[in-house]
């Protein structure tokens, strides 16, 4: 088993952290994992992305050209990674930041209003966790329970009070995506 995930959006949308949370969950469940950020001369408002690879055996390339799984939190990311997706892949799209439907019919594009869901929960910054939850619907190797446990285990003490809302964001994203697929 090997799964590659690209998570992309504006700097500040929590793209790198969302990838780390998934990486922690994979590590804690005994999988091999790599997480690598884009580390160009980016600044706030620019684009950021990270690649997470999860596997049962020693991971070769930490980068992937055609991911089977991706999250696009804004329009530039949607434009870029929609074209690069593997046939049959699943792309989680933040519908709140995108004004068009997917152009590809050989991938599954799950359109989810991450910003609005995050705001309903009460914190705009949870956009990334809504999207991460949605991604889990296409990543059976990492369960909601595993990712919640990873958040609890690796979030610093000063942020532990944020856990319930993060859990809610993950679950709302997961359920929205599952409902859309059905």
């Amino acid at each position, binding site marked *: 088993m090997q799964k590659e995930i690209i998570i992309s959006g504006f700097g500040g949308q929590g793209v790198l952290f969302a990838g*780390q949370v998934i990486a922690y969950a994979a*590590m804690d469940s005994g999988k*091999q994992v*790599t997480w*690598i950020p884009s*580390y160009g001369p980016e600044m706030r408002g620019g684009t950021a992305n990270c690649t997470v690879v999860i596997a049962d055996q020693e*991971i070769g*390339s930490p*980068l992937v*050209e055609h991911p089977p799984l991706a999250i696009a939190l804004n329009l530039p990311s949607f434009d870029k990674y929609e074209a690069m997706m593997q046939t049959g892949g699943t792309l989680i799209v933040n519908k709140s930041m995108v004004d068009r439907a997917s152009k590809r019919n050989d991938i599954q594009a799950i359109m989810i209003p991450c910003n609005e869901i995050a705001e309903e929960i009460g914190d705009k910054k949870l956009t990334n966790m809504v999207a991460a939850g949605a991604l889990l619907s296409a990543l059976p190797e990492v369960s909601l329970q595993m990712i919640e446990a990873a958040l609890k285990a690796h979030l610093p003490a000063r942020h532990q009070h944020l856990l319930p809302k993060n859990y809610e964001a993950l679950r709302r994203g997961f359920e929205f995506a599952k409902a859309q697929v059905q």
Partner: protein
Amino acid sequence: MAKELWKGNEAIAEAAVRAGLEAYFGYPITPQTEVLEYLAKRMPELGRAFVQAESELGAINMVYGAACTGVRVMSSSSSPGMSLMMEGISYIAGTEVPAVLVNVMRGGPGLGNIAPAQGDYNQAVHGGGHGDYQAIVLAPASVQEAIDLTVLSFDLAEKYRAICMVILDGCVGQMMEPAEMPEMRPVRREDWDWNTDGKMGKRERRILSSIYIDPVEEEKTNLRLLNRWRTIQANEVRYKEYFLDDAEIVIVGFGTAGRVALSAVREARAQGIKVGLLRPITVSPFPYEVLDQLSGRVDAFLVTEMNSGQMLEDVRLAVKGRVPVEFYGRLGGVVPFPDEILNEIHRMVKVKLSADVHPRDAWLERMAHA
């Protein structure tokens, strides 16, 4: 100890601390800065020395001074910064004091860019500083290897009173992977017979220098370094093998280029192609012997690097024209994808290969027509 998710650069810093690093001197440069940033906080916590020097020149000469006292000392930088350190590196080599240096390589030459590259292979392996010396050079491909080889580098540097460099590219420096740290070793002050740590009226005066005004004395020093290097060559070669037992084609790649090749090798194996991978861990001393042996039983080699074929020349020296050696490289900070290497494997299976054309020329020719 349980595995934690470590970023390559920070993992190197913590590994050095656990190996007993007593003094660090450096200057920030992407994609290496997290080593310095981590140690800026960690070293003072432990009452150890951390100095952000005024420049790389300052840093390497502070390393030189501290190394003369016999403590475990390190600096780190990225390509342009390493170039600035080369004079000091030569002085450290000529003085025969141990030092650990980390180069998180980026695109070059010149200011280049901050993307992952392997263009400093020749600088690290075949020289850099002036004069007759050689450094031990280790090339990790993962965060765990970066940790293990950082610890090893301190032991090797001390054992041979030599420079031990850890070269990695920005990929390994910036990547996070689950990894296990070694136990914290206590800081040891060895009672060396060479270090200048104050004689305190207890012993003869010692002088450490790289100056040998009399050429005959300098020649003796050069020969001493050379003989020590022969011992290192005989004892310290390290590499990792993948699927070599029945391999007909062998890929040779270090660091990130090596691990990207592993993905291509697995894919080719799934298609029934008998291909293996040799990933040098010590690029200096270079694993000539295993390549020499493989040359007698495989059909061809493919060297993959994130440079224009610097290690390629060392592979060719080992293979001695007995079988074709092919080359595939990406330059300037571009990281190859596994499919590019898989395409090369497919080509090598299909086409009749020749050992007559220089592999770099043949590769350039292919690139021009791609």
